[in-house]
């Protein structure tokens, strides 16, 4: 019995030794097991465990300034110098990272070739001052601002408001208002009149460039029995009790400049649903965009929802940016960029090292693009976008006032500059803020001025050139 009890004791000792040995391997192999490292990077909470691992890399803006870096006090926390202004594109790091923190997680957390004790860094196309400016211009109103270079699709700013503190996303977790939604990339809104850029280009490509149409004060019904499409002048006159006579035999440029609903509904019906559909298909707006092709987990942005028109009334509603149509601010910026870029739609990108790509070659014909461009210039010179003219910048623009199912109209504005060689596109939406020219336009104008100040727009000729160089 004594022998057997000794054997049992030894057995327990051996088993305990096994448990201890495995405990040791858990302690010492955690830093070598890639799956454990990945787990700790994502969900780790102990600074001691963090110290044994590779430090996560930085996210930089296009100037090499820090957008996201490891916090000074170590551990898993991150510092975000721009705070909530860049929370959406940069993202927040935590158990479930978002934005670029998520898309570039592999690069950021894997040891870099230069310094194996640190993760790789990622440079974005975002310009930190422009991003901050965009967010501050929204001034707490719900909405979004997108600024991009129409030549290569580089996104210079993508602000979404309301924001949240990326260093402490949980603090905002219970606040309503959808602060975690990236409205700039994923917010789908009825675009309203800014979509007339698309309709105009389609009509030009359909050979309807010189069509002159009348816009009766009582509106125009696309089909018998369908509710009439009316111009905003008619609606304003009805509200104020004044009289509006309507327009007779108006050409496309004038109709675009004053943003006539009747003209563009009529011309879309002349062009037909098939052509509308074909242009939508060719523009690639229906697909979602990959903003970071080099990232391990691709960062995608919702494009637009442009369903095939079912009948004339449907087509007429979509032609003026209403009905079942929904676009993200990024998609609206891309529409303008296509017009600015001679009809080629650049692939939007947020990754600085991504080579420039064309998303849709000849989405519009070069001729249609040039025509739309001149019409957008006319809208600034003598149309609804008058307030946006900046001397020396040759701004081209389009306003939009999108009716919503509930609440006030969304205020839209999209513009690019300069007309001769467009270098920046700005799209702005302010939710439930009324006319495009009222809320969104001033934001876009400030953004254009800030972009010029930052050197993203070089006006080769004109009175402003000297000033820019002096700065």
């Amino acid at each position: 019995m004594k022998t057997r009890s000794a054997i049992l004791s030894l057995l327990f000792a051996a088993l305990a030794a096994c448990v201890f040995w495995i405990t040791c391997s858990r302690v010492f192999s955690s830093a070598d097991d890639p799956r454990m490292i990945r787990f700790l990077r994502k969900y780790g909470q102990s600074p001691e465990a963090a110290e044994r691992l590779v430090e996560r890399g930085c996210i930089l803006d296009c100037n090499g300034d820090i957008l996201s870096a490891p916090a000074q006090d170590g551990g898993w926390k991150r510092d975000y110098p721009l705070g909530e202004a860049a929370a959406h594109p940069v993202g927040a790091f935590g158990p479930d990272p978002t934005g670029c923190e998520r898309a570039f997680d592999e690069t950021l957390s894997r040891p870099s070739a230069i310094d194996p004790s640190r993760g790789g860094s990622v440079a974005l196309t975002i310009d930190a001052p422009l991003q901050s400016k965009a967010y501050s211009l929204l001034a707490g109103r719900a909405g979004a601002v997108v600024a991009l270079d129409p030549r290569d699709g580089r996104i210079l700013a993508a602000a979404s408001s309301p924001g949240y503190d990326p260093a402490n996303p949980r603090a905002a977790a219970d606040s309503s208002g959808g602060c975690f939604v990236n409205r700039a990339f994923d917010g789908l809104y009825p675009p309203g009149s800014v979509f007339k850029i698309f309709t105009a280009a389609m009509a030009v490509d359909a050979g309807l460039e010189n069509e002159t149409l009348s816009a009766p004060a009582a509106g125009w019904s696309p089909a018998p029995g369908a509710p009439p499409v009316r111009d905003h002048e008619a609606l304003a006159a009805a509200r104020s009790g004044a009289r509006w006579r309507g327009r007779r035999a108006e050409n496309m440029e004038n109709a675009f400049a004053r943003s006539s609903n009747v003209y563009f509904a009529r011309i879309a019906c002349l062009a037909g649903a098939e052509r509308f559909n074909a242009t939508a298909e060719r523009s690639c707006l229906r697909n979602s965009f990959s903003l970071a092709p080099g990232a391990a987990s691709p960062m995608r942005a919702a494009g637009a929802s442009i369903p095939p028109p079912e009948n004339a009334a449907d087509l007429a509603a979509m032609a003026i940016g209403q009905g079942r149509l929904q676009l993200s601010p990024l998609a609206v910026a891309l529409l303008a960029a296509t017009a600015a870029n001679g009809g080629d739609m650049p692939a939007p990108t947020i990754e600085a090292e991504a080579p420039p790509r064309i998303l849709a070659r000849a989405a519009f014909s070069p001729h249609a693009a040039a025509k739309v461009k001149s019409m957008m210039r006319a809208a600034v010179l003598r149309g609804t976008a008058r307030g946006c003219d900046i001397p020396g910048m040759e701004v081209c623009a389009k306003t939009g006032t999108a009716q919503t199912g509930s609440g006030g109209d969304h205020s839209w504005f999209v513009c690019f500059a300069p007309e001769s060689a467009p270098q920046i596109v700005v799209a702005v939406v302010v939710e439930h803020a009324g006319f495009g020219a009222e809320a969104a336009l001033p934001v876009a104008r400030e953004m254009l001025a800030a972009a010029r100040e930052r050197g993203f727009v070089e006006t080769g000729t004109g009175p402003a050139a000297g000033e820019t160089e002096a700065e």
Partner: protein
Amino acid sequence: MRLFALSSVLLAAAGAYWQLHSPHGPAGAKSLAAAAATGAAGGAALFAILRKNALEHFPALAFALPPAALAVAAAVKLLGVSYRGGVFLGGMNPTEIFKPMAVLYTAFALSRERARLPLLCGGLAFFAAAGAILNDFGLVAVIAISALCTAFFRSAAAGAALFAGGAALAGALFAFPPAHVARRITAWLDPFADATGSGWQFLKAQETMAAGGVFGAYFGEGGAGAWLPVSESDFVFAAVCGEFGLAGCAVLLALYVLYAAGGLAVAARARASATAATAAAGFACSVAAQALVNTGGVVRAMPMTGITLPFVSHGGSSLAVTIAMTIGVFAAAGTAAEEQPKRAKRKFATIKPVTDKQRT
């Protein structure tokens, strides 16, 4: 005996320290004292049962143990409240008491003249059924291992036979696991497959252990408690490793080994009664087996079973039963040749005259 006394006192002290200073909300001196008092009372009962050879004198008492366990399990299943995979009745986990019951029955069955193994296996089947009803396979494992060790303690052949049977059953459980067991096996084999779900506790435990290193990271502050799930009960071993490092783990594991070795030595030297000696071995093996099953689960050497770490985990019922079983080991001790069988007999005779009849 000295070894066992020393190791159990040290374990109790370490456990009391941990429970009173644990970051996860201290157990509270009051509840600790209550558990200790309950344990002492239970221990006294076990002590009396074994010293007076009550089971041998009243075999019906012993035969009633397995069905009683099954009945309690059924009652708990019907009336109890499920919480974290265990079933509780009135804040207590009543399955804890199955452990000393099973040890008593095992000791009784192994001390019979005839049909030892069939009796033992038949009774254990009741306990296994009781554990299975409550989904408490950790309890079943502890009872089985303890019975296996006890059988080996009595005779190598019995141990071998039981081992074969137990291994076959364990194999069958692994091959055709019920859903509840299958989840635990999956989480054990690959915690990363569901890192934020079934694997979360394991990976958090590993993070804590890695943070603790060799000498511990949170000495005296228990920083791991804030984010280590169930750090006060099932995963307390990882929390100990975080606070005291591998050094603390080594000491703790060594104490359990000394506890088992000491208890077995007490049992081997006992000359009181075969039942008491066997029960003492069973108690020691039960506590040590539970410690190994718990720590093995935490470090992913085996599937997690959801049983506590004796002495250290929070939980009044667990602590009380552990204390009771520790006292039970002493029942086999100190009754050497010159002990007072007459006095014991006389004392016993005054209370239970039936003894004399049987003895004569």
